[in-house]
């Protein structure tokens, strides 16, 4: 982007010799920094500054009232060895990621492939499948979910028609996480749209050539579609996984803010919220935040390192 940029605002090439050096520097770089100013203020004041402060707070006890008290690595030590709720939160969050992301991507890919091959009414189907994605982040949908999977909810009413008596899904520790997984999978619309865009980029002559060579549909999918789509699959997997690690609202609404029953929906972010804004353990919550960054960072690094073994880049 360097070579093609234009210098704007420098004015006429020949300038009076009296003009000082500072003025020339300003004329050369000033406009850029003027336009960047709001972002720069935000970066230092709302991102970099707070991030450094958060790292400091993670080594303190801080309750918002008294000044932070330095405790060294005690917060991290407690997280690592003596916090069963942290262990529960990590377990629930990993379970959620491992269950929801593959199902969501599988659905997204399956439907995208069905839609890709010149189906009539594509735009209608696409709209219907995309709608839950758009609405799904709201409290209203979490409220609806809470009713759907309640003991006397819609799902059990439907099951009763087949003579099955369902449990109260949201208040059973073995099933509650599944209601959240279903909610996540229900929102497969946006990865589906990304898959559709990816499928469009696969040159059709590849399929034509394969057909001439007598390759079956299944073989074409396995040998052409899937390999050429791996960059998109990889992208979707990383984005959805990071998003799943950060999920908050559905667990908060469905469990009434508790993460219950028996911590079975205690998402990591929900635990962090409880520690920070329920118990006002701001130092401890800061340490939890940095552990989350570490987990997401490690996961991302791992994905990128392993990607070269399965993601197909042809150039």
């Amino acid at each position, binding site marked *: 982007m360097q070579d093609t940029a234009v210098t*704007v605002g420098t004015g006429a090439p020949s300038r009076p010799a009296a003009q000082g050096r500072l003025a020339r520097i300003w004329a050369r770089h000033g406009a850029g920094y003027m*336009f960047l*100013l*709001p972002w720069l203020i935000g970066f230092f004041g709302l991102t970099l500054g707070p991030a450094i402060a958060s790292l400091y707070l993670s080594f303190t006890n801080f309750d918002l009232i008294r000044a932070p008290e330095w405790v060294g690595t005690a917060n991290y030590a407690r997280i690592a060895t003596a916090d069963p709720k942290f262990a529960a939160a990590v377990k629930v969050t990993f379970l959620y990621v491992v269950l929801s992301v593959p199902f969501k991507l599988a659905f997204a890919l399956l439907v995208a492939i069905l839609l890709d091959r010149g*189906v009539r009414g594509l735009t209608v189907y696409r709209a219907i499948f*995309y*709608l839950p994605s758009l609405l799904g982040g709201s*409290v209203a949908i979490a409220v609806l979910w809470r009713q759907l999977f309640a003991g006397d909810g*819609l799902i059990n009413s439907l099951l009763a028609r087949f003579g099955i008596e369902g449990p109260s899904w949201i208040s059973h520790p073995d099933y509650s996480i599944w209601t959240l997984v279903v909610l996540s999978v229900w929102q497969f619309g946006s990865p589906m749209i990304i898959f559709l865009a990816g499928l*469009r980029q696969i040159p059709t002559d590849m399929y034509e050539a394969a057909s001439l060579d007598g390759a079956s549909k299944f073989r074409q999918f396995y040998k052409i579609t899937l390999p050429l789509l791996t960059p998109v699959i990889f992208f979707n997997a990383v984005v959805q996984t990071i998003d799943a690690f950060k999920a908050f609202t559905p667990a908060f609404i469905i469990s009434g803010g508790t993460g219950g029953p028996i911590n079975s929906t205690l998402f990591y972010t929900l635990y962090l919220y409880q520690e920070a804004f329920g118990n006002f353990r701001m130092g401890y919550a800061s340490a939890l935040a940095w552990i989350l960054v570490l987990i997401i960072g490690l996961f991302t690094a791992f994905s990128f390192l392993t990607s070269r073994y399965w993601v197909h880049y042809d150039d």
Partner: protein
Amino acid sequence: MTDATMSLVTAPPPAPPGRRGPIGSALVHAALIAASIAMIYPLLWMISASVRPEDEIFASTSLSPSSVDFSSYLRGWFGLDVSFGRFFWNSLVIAVLTVIGNVVACSLAAYAFARLRFAGRNFWFAIMLGTMMVPYHVTLIPQYVLFLDLGWVNTFLPLVVPKFLASDAFFIFLMVQFFRGIPRELDEAAMMDGCGAWRIYWKIMLPLSLPVLATAAIFSFIWTWDDFFGPLIYLNDMNSYTIQLGLRTFVDSSSTSDWGGLFAMSTLSLVPVFFFFLFFQRLLIEGIATTGMKR
């Protein structure tokens, strides 16, 4: 989001490789229709539950109520100490201010990154991309302390002011991509005519960038409207609650007693987002397809 990628998303698909036979085609449609019904059944059921007589809500799995009764809307609207009109208004104010902040601040920064030359530009651009990866939890607590010290807690300021400082780096990135696609000859010609950076930004870049500005505005609105975490932390007084907080309070207070009112208000809370879905679907889908936005 150049013309090429735009048409990639909206143009009819290329000649389908190996068209399905009539039976295959029917099977595909059957599967898609079944999936569609399963997907929107919960939504339709909620809407129908909101107009159903109270005693019928749990008894019925059908979508058509025996009689249509809007009384739960009235009950829900006044179901809490503060009416839902207030919550809707608060959400609207926050969302509109957020849209303005994001569009203005992000387009300024994007213009600098895409078109201006200054020392350190590539460095700042890399930093900006880096901020997109940082989970907000890391800055959450110090930001809260900062806004508490400023006396901003329980006002809309902590939710809105960061947007005027281009805190949603994602939109900067989106706009940079678009600005780079605008022919450079236009600003060069304007420069010859003596236009400065500001006039080029205002008279050339912005008018030519309406699609990307609209995309950013719509996503800003929807994300802010649906945001739960920010308001949960910063707004404690019911008079300043957003619609999402109002719904959450309603759930907790009424617990199972007034599902009709709860569904009525839930349905209403989805209306603005649904409106954008109906009228700007193309922009939304292009936005996702070309940038990989998560929603």
